[in-house]
C-alpha cells in the first residue's frame, strides 16, 4: 500500500432539491393521496350506480340462489345433508337464509374502486378486480358454510361467529388482497422501465 499517496477528497454528492418549508414537504406526499381518495370516491359512485340498472335485482337474486346451491353442494361433499330452498340452506331444524347484505358486495366494491383508482395499467386492473373478487367471494362462501355449520351444531355461538369473527375476517381478506395487488402492480415494470404510470 502506498502510504504517501495523497488523500483525495471525494466530490460532494449532488444534493437533491428540497422543497422549502414544512408545508411544501407535506404537499408532495399529500396530493397523490388526495387524488387517489377523490378517484376512489368517483369509482364507488360508479359501482353503486350500477345497482340502479334495470335487471340488477334479478341478477343478484340469481347469483344468491346459485351461491347457496354451491355452498350446499360443498357441505354435502363433506357428509352434511343439506337442502336448498330459494336462498335458504336447510339441514334438519337448522336453516340459514342468505340476503343481499350477506354477499360481501361492499367489500368487492371497496376493492374494485381502490384498484380502479390506483394508477396502474388497464390489464393489471382487470387482473386485480378478478383476483380480489374471487378471493372475497371464496371467503364469503366459507363464511356462509361456517355459519350454517355453527347454526346446526352450536347455535349459541352463531352470533359470535356471525357478528364478531366474520366481519373482521372479511376486512382482513379484503385489505390483504387489495394491498397484495398494489404490491404486485408496483413491482411489475412497464415498457419504459418505470414501474407505474403516473
Amino acid at each position: 500500500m502506498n502510504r504517501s499517496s495523497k488523500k483525495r477528497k471525494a466530490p460532494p454528492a449532488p444534493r437533491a432539491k428540497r422543497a422549502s418549508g414544512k408545508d411544501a414537504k407535506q404537499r408532495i406526499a399529500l396530493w397523490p393521496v388526495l387524488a387517489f381518495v377523490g378517484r376512489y370516491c368517483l369509482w364507488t359512485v360508479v359501482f353503486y350506480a350500477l345497482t340502479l340498472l334495470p335487471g340488477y335485482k334479478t341478477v343478484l337474486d340469481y347469483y344468491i340462489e346459485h351461491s347457496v346451491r354451491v355452498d350446499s353442494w360443498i357441505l354435502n361433499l363433506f357428509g352434511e345433508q343439506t337442502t336448498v330452498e330459494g336462498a335458504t340452506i336447510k339441514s334438519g331444524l337448522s336453516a340459514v337464509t342468505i340476503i343481499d347484505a350477506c354477499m360481501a358486495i361492499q367489500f368487492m366494491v371497496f376493492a374494485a374502486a381502490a384498484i380502479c383508482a390506483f394508477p396502474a395499467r388497464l390489464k393489471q386492473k382487470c387482473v386485480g378486480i378478478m383476483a380480489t373478487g374471487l378471493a372475497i367471494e371464496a371467503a364469503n362462501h366459507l363464511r356462509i358454510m361456517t355459519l350454517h355449520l355453527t347454526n346446526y351444531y352450536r347455535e349459541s355461538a352463531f352470533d359470535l361467529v356471525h357478528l364478531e369473527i366474520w366481519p373482521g375476517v372479511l376486512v382482513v381478506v379484503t385489505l390483504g388482497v387489495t394491498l397484495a395487488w398494489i404490491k404486485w402492480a408496483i413491482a411489475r415494470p412497464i415498457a419504459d422501465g418505470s414501474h407505474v404510470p403516473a
Partner: protein
Amino acid sequence: MYPRKTIAWLALRFVVVLGLLSFGWPGVGNAMADYFRWFGRQVIPAKDGLRVVLFEKLGHVRGQKPDDLRISVVNLSLLDANGYGPVRDIPWPARAFIQRPLALLIALLVATPVSWRKRALALVIGSVAIHAFLWGAISFVIWKESAAPILSLATIPSYLQEPVEALSAALIAQVSIAVPVLSWLIGAVPFAHRPVVELGYAMPKDTKCLCP
C-alpha cells in the same frame, strides 16, 4: 419494499389489534350505544321545525343487543292529542358504526411503520374524518326517512327515489371499511417513510424522500 419478515410482523400486529379492539367485550356495546346516542344528539337537532329525531337505546328490550340503537323520526303535526302518530324507525347498531371503524383505523395505524407522534396525529385526523362522515351519513339517512309518505317532512322526486336509496346504502356500507382506510391513507401515509413510492406514483428524479 419492506422485507417479507417485516411485512408479516406488521400484518400480525394489524390482525391482533383489530381482533382485540373490534371484539364485543362485556360493557363495550353499552358504552358504544351511550356514546353514539350522545354523538347523535350533538350533531342532529332533536327538534327541527315539525321534525323530531330521537336516539333511543334498545339494550333493555328483549332480543336486542346492548349496542342496538333506534333513531326515530316523527312529524309533530301528525301526532294526536295523546302523542300517538306515525314514526319511522332506523335501526342503528352502534358498534358497527363507531367501534369497528375506529378499531380498523387504530389497527392500520399500529401496523404502519411511523413514529407514535405521527400515529397520534393520524388518529386524530382519522377520528375526525370518521365522525364527520358519520354525521353526513346520519343526516342523509334521516332526511331520506323524513321523505317517507307517512311523514311527508321532505320531498324526494320520484326519479330520485332509487338513487337516494342506493346512496344511502352506499354510505352505510362504506362506514365499516372505506372510511377508516381512506382516513388512514390521508392521516398516516403522507408521513410514512416512502409515501409517494408506496402509492406507486412516479417521483421526479431529483426528489428525495423528505420525511424525517
